[in-house]
C-alpha cells in the first residue's frame, strides 16, 4: 500500500507549477491527471519518450514481409503459369504487401499504446472522477508525516482547492 498526497486544482497552470515545485523539492516525479492534455508538461516534468513508434515501424515491416510472403509464397507452392508471365508478379503482390503492412502497423500501434501506457489497468490506482470533468489533479507518493506536511505546503502554496490522502494498492 503506497500512500499518496493528492492536490486538486482549478486550472492547469497552477497544477503544473505545483508539480514542478514538488519535483524540485525532491519528491518522486508527480503524476498529473487532467480532462485535457496539458500543454508544457514536458518542460516541467522532463521529456517523455514512448516505444510506440518502434511498435508501429516493426509492425509495418513485419506486415509487409508477411503480405509479400503470403502472396508470393502461395503462388510458388502451387505454380499456375498464365500466358508465360512470371509466377511472382510484382504489381499485384505489392498491393497485398501494402495492405498487410498497414494492417499490422495499426495492430502493433495499438499493442504499443497499451503496453507503454500500462492499460488496461488491472489494479486500483489513484483516481478522482473530477479529473475527467474540469479539475487538474497532482499526485505524488509520500513516506511519512513529515513528507506529507511538506507536500501539503507546496500544493496549497500553488493554490490547490483541496488536498487529500489516497492509498493505492501495490
Amino acid at each position, binding site marked *: 500500500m503506497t500512500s499518496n498526497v493528492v492536490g486538486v*486544482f*482549478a*486550472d*492547469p*497552470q497552477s497544477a503544473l507549477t505545483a508539480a514542478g515545485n514538488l519535483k524540485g523539492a525532491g519528491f518522486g516525479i508527480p*503524476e*498529473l*491527471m*487532467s*480532462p*485535457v*492534455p*496539458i500543454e508544457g*508538461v*514536458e518542460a516541467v*516534468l522532463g521529456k*517523455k519518450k*514512448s516505444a*510506440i*513508434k518502434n511498435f*508501429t515501424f516493426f509492425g*509495418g515491416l513485419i506486415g509487409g514481409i508477411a503480405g509479400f510472403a*503470403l*502472396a508470393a509464397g*502461395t*503462388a510458388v*507452392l*502451387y505454380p499456375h503459369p498464365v500466358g508465360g508471365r512470371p509466377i511472382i*508478379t510484382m504489381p*499485384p*503482390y505489392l*498491393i*497485398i504487401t501494402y*495492405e*498487410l503492412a*498497414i*494492417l499490422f*502497423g*495499426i*495492430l502493433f*500501434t*495499438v499493442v*504499443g*499504446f*497499451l503496453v*507503454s*501506457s500500462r*492499460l*488496461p*489497468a*488491472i489494479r486500483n*490506482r*489513484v*483516481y478522482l*472522477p473530477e*479529473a*475527467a*470533468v*474540469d479539475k487538474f489533479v497532482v499526485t505524488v507518493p509520500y513516506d511519512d508525516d513529515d513528507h506529507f506536511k511538506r507536500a501539503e505546503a507546496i500544493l496549497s502554496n500553488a*493554490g490547490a482547492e483541496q488536498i487529500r490522502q489516497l492509498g493505492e494498492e501495490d
Partner: protein
Amino acid sequence: MVAETNNLGYTDIHEDVVRSIVKTGPKYYIALATAGGTTLLCFFFPWFYQLYYGIGAAGMNHPGVWGTYLASFIFWIGLSHSGTLLSCVLHLTNSSWRKAMYRSAEAMTLFSLVVAATYVMVHVGRPWFIHWALPYPNQMELWPNFRSPLMFDVMAITTYITGSTIFIYMGSIPDFAAVRDRTSGWRNTMYTLLSLGWRGTDKEWHRLHWAYTFLAVLIIPLAVSVHSIVSWDFAMSIVPALHQTIFAPYFVVGAIYSGTAGIVTVMFVLRKYMGFERYITKLHFDNLGKLLLVLSLLWTYINAVELFTSWYSGTSEEYEAVGFKLFGFYAPLYWEMILFCAVAPLLMFSTRFRTSFMPMLILSIVINIGMYTERFLIIATSLPRQYLPDAWGVYVPSAVEVSIMVGSFALFTTLFLVFVKIFPSVSMYEVKETMATPKLGSVAPASGSPA
C-alpha cells in the same frame, strides 16, 4: 471557432454529452423502431427471399450480371471515405474545427463499411461460402488468386474496417472514462471495460497522442488505397467505359465527395435532434461547404477527362459506350447526375448558402443522390453494352434489389442511432481543448487559444 465556444465551460460540454447518452426521449425510440422495422422489412426480408428462391430474384442476368448490389457497395464504401480520412487529415493539419464533428464522421465511416460489407454478402448469392474469399488453402491445396482485384478488395476492406474501428475507439477512450464516472448499472460496467481504466494522466495523454497520430498517418494512405482498389475491380476488366486509368482517382475523389456530403447530412441531424447546436456551428457548415465545392469541381474535371479519353481513343466500342451513356437508355440519369453533382454544388460559391443549414442539408442529399446515380451508371452502362451488338441488353433492377437499396439506408440509420447512445458522439476532451482553460479566480478570457 474559439469565439463561438468560449462562453461555454468544461462542465457544459460534459453535461451535454452525458445527457445525449443517458437521457432518451420517446422520439428516439420511435425513430429507432421505425429504422429497425424498415431494415427488417426492406433489407432482411427481401434478402431472405432471395436466398430462398435464388439469385434470380434479383434483376441481374446476362449480359447485365452486375447490378445495384455492386453500385450500392461502391456507394457505401465511398460514403465511408470522408469520415476517417477527413478526420485523419484534419488531425494532422491541426484543424481545431474538426473536433466537434469528427467522432460522428468516423462512426459514419464504420457503419457505411458495415453496410458495404453486408452488400457483398447480398451480391454473392451464396454468402455461406464467403470464407472462400479468405486467404487459406482449399482441400486441393489451392490458395486464392492474389492477382485478382477481388482479393485486393478483401485485404483492403478488412484492413479498413479494422483500422477505422480502432481509430474511432482509440479517440474515444478518454470520453468513455468521463462517461464511466457518470453512469451506473450496466452502462457503468460497459464503460469501465471500454475505458480500460483510463485516468487522464500526463503519461496516458502523451501515449494516446502519439498512438493516435501514427494511426492517422497509417489510415490516410489506406483509405486512398481502398477506393482505388474498388475501382480496379472494374478498371482491370477490358470492358469499354470501364478500362480507364483515370478510374482510381475518379473513385477516390467521388468517394470523398459523397462522404463529405454525407457528413453534412449527419451533422445537420445531430445538431438539430441531439441538441449539439452549440458545438456544431455555421463554421463547420462553411468549412465543409468549401471542401465540397472543391471536390465537386475536381469531380467535374475528372468526368470531362473520362469523356475526353474515350473520344481520344478513337475506337468504335469506346465511342459506342460514350454515346450510350450520354444519349442512350440511361441518358436522363446521366444528366440528372451532372445537374446534381456538377451544377448544383456551384451554389456553394456563395457564403450565405454555405452558412444556411437547410439549403446545405438539401444540397448534401441531392449530391448523394447524384453520386448513387454515378455508381449505378458505371455498372448499368458498361457490362450490358460490350463489344458485340447481339449481346447487348438493358439492366433494370428488380423489386428485391430496389427494396434492399432502400433498406440499406434504414440499416445505416439503425446502426447510427445505436451508436449515438453508446459512444459520446461529440469528442468531449477535444472540444474542451478548444475552450479557454479555467483560470484561478478569474473569468475565462474573451479569446482563448485553441489548445
